[in-house]
């Protein structure tokens, strides 16, 4: 498998404000909201792409479909229906993908029958059920929602790690990051801290300090990233816990 062509804008682009809240508040109408949505879509391009791949399409076709999906989503005004009080970007995106696929299938079928093209509106956030198109919902049935959520968690983790790596690089600590990142996993490592200390020319105590800092900063960044995708005031820990559960059961 080759590396998916993640748009460069998505890599490590730190959000300044809570993007999804911004999108929800403006119902996608303001230029700022459109920009925020654009950034979010770029950031979470990968779960959509992988979800589409998983249905048995080739990577090229999946990539084309993904581009088309985002293009339509960003052009559409479906967010007018979005309710700021509920719904996460994750749920919204999954619902939109499913809807897009259903619509795609319907169009393909209609074209075969020589019919016109009618587009259905994108669902609102939290509206994970693709209503009104029951006969084609089974298109995505073979790919469970949890697969999308798993990919989402991977992307989230990747974003946080990339940001952390960039921060460390800015402090001229790339070597330290690469050497110490295994400790982000936990304590039960057979890895020797004294060896790492020797390689990094630090005392063992200093390595412990560095590991603690790395973990703390990673936690902060991860929470910031989660915060970008959920409505303001929503429990960040709750969303993180959900993703941990998805990974544990997957």
């Amino acid at each position, binding site marked *: *498998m*080759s*590396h*998916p062509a*993640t748009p460069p804008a998505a890599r490590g682009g730190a959000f300044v404000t809570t993007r999804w809240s911004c999108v929800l508040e403006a119902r996608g109408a303001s230029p700022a909201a459109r920009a925020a949505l654009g950034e979010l879509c770029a950031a979470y391009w*990968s779960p959509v792409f992988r979800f589409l791949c998983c249905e048995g399409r080739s990577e090229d076709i999946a990539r084309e479909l993904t581009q088309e999906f985002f293009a339509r989503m960003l052009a559409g005004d479906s967010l007018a229906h979005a309710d700021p009080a509920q719904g996460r970007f994750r749920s919204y995106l999954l619902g939109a993908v499913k809807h897009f696929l259903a619509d795609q299938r319907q169009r393909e079928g209609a074209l075969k029958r020589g019919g016109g093209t009618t587009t259905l509106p994108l669902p609102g956030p939290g509206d994970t059920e693709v209503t009104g198109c029951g006969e084609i919902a089974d298109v995505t049935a073979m790919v469970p929602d949890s697969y999308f959520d798993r990919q989402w*968690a*991977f*992307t*989230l*983790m*990747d974003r*946080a*790690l990339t940001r952390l790596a960039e921060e460390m690089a800015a402090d001229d600590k790339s070597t330290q990051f690469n050497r110490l*990142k*295994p*400790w*982000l*996993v*936990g*304590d*039960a*490592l*057979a*890895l020797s*801290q*004294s060896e790492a200390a020797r390689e990094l020319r*630090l*005392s*063992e*105590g*200093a*390595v*412990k*300090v*560095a*590991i*603690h*800092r790395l*973990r*703390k900063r*990673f*936690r902060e960044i*991860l*929470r910031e990233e989660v915060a970008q995708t959920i409505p303001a005031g929503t429990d960040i*820990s709750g969303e*993180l*816990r959900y*993703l*941990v559960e998805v*990974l*544990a059961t997957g």
Partner: protein
Amino acid sequence: MNTQLNLNPCPQCGTPIPGDAPQGLCPRCVLARAATPTEGGSPAGGRLVAPALEVVAAAFPTLEILELLGFGGMGVVYKARQPQLGRLVALKLLPQSLGADPAFAERFQREARCLARLHHPNIVNVYEFGQSGGFCYLLLEYVDGVNLRQAMQAGRFSPKEALAIVPAICGALQYAHEQGVLHRDIKPENILLDTQGTVKLADFGIAKLLREPGDTHAELTLTQTGSRLGTPHYMAPEQVENPGSVDHRADIYSLGVVFYELLTGELPLGRFAAPSAKADLDARVDAIVFRALAKERELRQQSAGEVRTDVEGLSQAQPPGAGGSRAVSDAAPNPWPHRLFWLLLGLVVLPVAAVIAAILAPILMKGGVRSFGGLIVALVPMVAGAALVLGYRQSRPGAAQAQPRAAWNPWPRRVFWSVIGLVVLPGLLIVIGLIVPIVAFRQHPLPPAIDSSLPEAADGGLPNPLPAPNAKLPAVLPAGPSGPSPSARKRQLAGEQLEMLRKQAEVGLVAPRGQEILGAERDLAVAEAEVRGDAAAVAAARLTYANSILAIMQRLFDNGKVSASELYSAKTAVADAEIASQQFPPAGTNTVTPLPR
């Protein structure tokens, strides 16, 4: 994203890491770890609410309040900057309710002044203290690092690291103790490690500040705020039982707990194992840790400097290779020299003492104080045994306290030494102490007169080996050229007997003028007369004393103290003496009459 097929299991959870896991790290573990609440730095019980940055900034206009660092040391700590000095500081705010209490405020001033005097490379400096905006505050040196708790969470300390950290803590403690300041709340949260790996002790004396005896207010307030008043696991037993009596050795106990935790990753609770059983350690470390953890503070190291010396002694004497150290240390456990000393004492010195006692005993008995001598013979090995057991127990570090003894290394060895120390050696000593005197007594039998197993001689005649004096007496008179004559020896024996009986009379064992003493006096008088060759005096003495003894026996018989046959013997003795004296012309009873030659 890394999309390589990755079949490596996660070192943490053991499940295969997905091929597309970011950076090849197990997403499950990374996210699970990040999703758990932050380590440390959170208020105990979540009830302590940190004042907002703006509130703090308003109370401290000369400081730039940068961020909340965490909760600890019974207060909230902020990172701040002193713009004028351009240095970072840590601002510790004590609960606001305390600042409102004038008694606390006064004590705070007093204690903080003490703390501000401590300057040591391993102690967090107190720059400033006081009250501002209703807060009692301490302005502290900012330590760019983590506390030991967080460091332990980042990974267990290697023995080498732990052994490097402890001396630094000891140095700081020793310094503070010399300044008369106790820490009172040593625990991993109060030991900081900066980015250079330097150890810094924080929160000196804060525990006392907030826990002045008799002041329940501070304690109450803090408990209400949810701040923990020191964790019992790190507190010395006397600190829990009698907080008013603690001295610097309470800090040494707490240090012992931290030391144990650094080495093993666990607290020394219940039947805890020796550190060397938990980590690849020189077993001599066990002795140091157990000693610091002794329940009785008298048994602990008596200063932090002593702990430091012990720990540093390990690294100096130990070759750098850690692998071989264990085998060596198993063969020579640390308490061994002490045991050897006490065993030598038991096997050599104490038996010698017992033998001396055994030699002394007959001499004492010869003097007549029989029961006293016997007591000494019995007591010496017993006292010696007790001293041995006591010394043996004390020579084992921490042996006298419940916990470490329970956790003392392998059972068989422990039992073996306990049996040797407590049973075999004292038993052996007592046996030696008893056998030697018995053998000694057999070689120097006691005079029969004091042996109660022999019938009492009512007339004192029985011990007299001489036949009744008669005309043949002169035949024995000439003294041989070599050695004393039989008569002279008899006189000497009689003198000794009399002397001994008089001593017995002094302690009430015999009557001062009883038949025993009269009998002995008679024997002496007879022997003296025989030495002189004065047969008449012999007969006279016999007659005189026989009459006196008869008088006593008659009285005793009248009182039912002696039997008729004993009275009869006394009467016969008088009759015999009269017959003997008839050979000589009547004269003064004690008049010396020269034998005709």
